[in-house]
């Protein structure tokens, strides 16, 4: 019952949203083929189910593995940066630089570096994109801590690692989860764009470009829908994980909101 409640709002909003989309297109249908109505996309989705599902599996693997690696690296870098000032002065601009390089530019380089057919090049692109928000947000959460809590740990002569674990990490959790939510969708974009540039042709990325290139927009949007579904599933998982990892957080609300 309770778990259902969390989903009712998105469903209502979804019905409204898609209804509006469908309705608007049925009235002003001049450009309808570029942005087809949801009903047509759903039709294409069902017609191409096999191909879409295979593509989603291939792309999904790149997304999830790249996301995991990027998150781990981002968190490690954030820890490093809060620990050593020189690390901050060097890693931060580097991370910024890597992040500012458009994936489209990284794609050919990575494809060459790791091999066109290896999933590693696409994973590397996902990692590069996911890393930054995780790093920036987590580093922020690790430093923006209550001074009295740090002092308490100092009074216990707790080591830096321990203070990090007991104070900084819990404090960074809300920041981290916010970034993780950002990262899930970035990972999907990154994987799909990376696939435009190389790799297996049955993944979602090529399906989108190829169909769009031939103006088969309903097929393209069916693949987009699959990518969106991957993103949505990941996002929902993160939301569940967040609630599980920060049970105290929902308590810190004002009394009125609680009622």
């Amino acid at each position, binding site marked *: 019952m309770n778990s259902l409640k969390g989903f009712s709002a998105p469903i209502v909003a979804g019905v409204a949203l898609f209804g509006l989309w469908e309705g608007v297109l049925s009235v002003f249908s001049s450009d309808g083929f570029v942005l087809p109505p949801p009903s047509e996309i759903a039709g294409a989705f069902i017609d191409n189910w096999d191909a879409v599902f295979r593509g989603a599996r291939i792309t999904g693997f790149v997304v999830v593995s790249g996301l995991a690696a990027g998150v781990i690296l981002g968190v490690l870098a954030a820890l490093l940066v809060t620990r050593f000032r020189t690390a901050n002065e060097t890693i931060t601009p580097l991370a910024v630089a890597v992040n500012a390089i458009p994936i489209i530019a990284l794609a050919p380089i990575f494809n060459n570096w790791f091999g066109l057919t290896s999933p590693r090049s696409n994973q590397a692109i996902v990692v590069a994109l996911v890393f930054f928000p995780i790093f920036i947000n987590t580093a922020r959460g690790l430093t923006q801590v209550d001074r009295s809590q740090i002092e308490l740990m100092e*009074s*216990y002569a707790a080591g830096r690692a321990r203070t990090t674990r007991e104070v900084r990490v819990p404090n960074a959790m809300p920041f981290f989860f916010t970034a993780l939510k950002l990262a899930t969708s970035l990972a999907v974009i990154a994987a799909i764009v990376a696939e435009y540039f190389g790799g297996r042709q049955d993944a979602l990325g090529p399906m989108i470009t190829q169909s769009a290139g031939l103006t088969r927009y309903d097929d393209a949007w069916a693949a987009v829908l699959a990518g969106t579904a991957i993103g949505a599933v990941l996002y929902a998982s993160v939301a569940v994980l967040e609630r599980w990892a920060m049970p*105290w957080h929902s308590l810190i609300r004002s009394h009125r909101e609680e009622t």
Partner: protein
Amino acid sequence: MNAIHIRGATKVFNPGKSSQVEALADIDLAVEPGEFITLIGPSGCGKSTLLRLISSLALPTTGSVEVNGKPAEQARLDRDYGMAFQTSGLFDWRTVAKNIELPLELMGWSKADRRRRSSEMLELVKLGDFAKHHPSELSGGMQQRVAIARALAFSPSILLMDEPFGALDEMTREHMQDELLRIWRDTGTTLVFVTHSIPEAVYLSTRVVVMSPRPGRIAAVIDVGLGDRQASTRDDPAFFSKVTEVRAALREVEG
């Protein structure tokens, strides 16, 4: 060897800026092991700052602080201190019991020992029912009691407490005072305690240190010498005369 030895300590915040504040001036203080010292003085006179200097959470602008015969910094690293801050400083993400267990974890106590100690301490502060609650679900006084329990949970050689009983009602406060005295006697801890309550200062301590307003200086040190405290001590004329003496000293500095 003194438990705490402060020599010529001063503290200036934001030196050179327009917001410069001279918080402490010329502090000299020597505390014997096993003493119970209270600091009392007007709001903003530097009591919390002095506790910070002792625990080496802040460094004196000039002067030196020695604890257990070594620099304060070293004493901190040796885990000679237990502290209760003016604001409770509980961790939102830990339950009440886990908050109390935090220092014990750091000292490497076993899980079973920790569990036992935290429930003992919760009984002491009369919060047995709230072990599994999070701090944000407690009242102000209950949070303060958790912080006290955390400070008392292990037996540091020096215990620093900053207005720990401020948010407690009279009865709970008297109960906590007696428990604190019992623990102090049993463990031989050196205690430095900040309070605004003159009777509390007199009831608890061996010496009362009266501080003057900004910049904080030690205006008077009053030996209490009431011997073992009992329920009757609070009605003792000697007790009242000490209270009057401290009050007079305070009126003088604030005057």
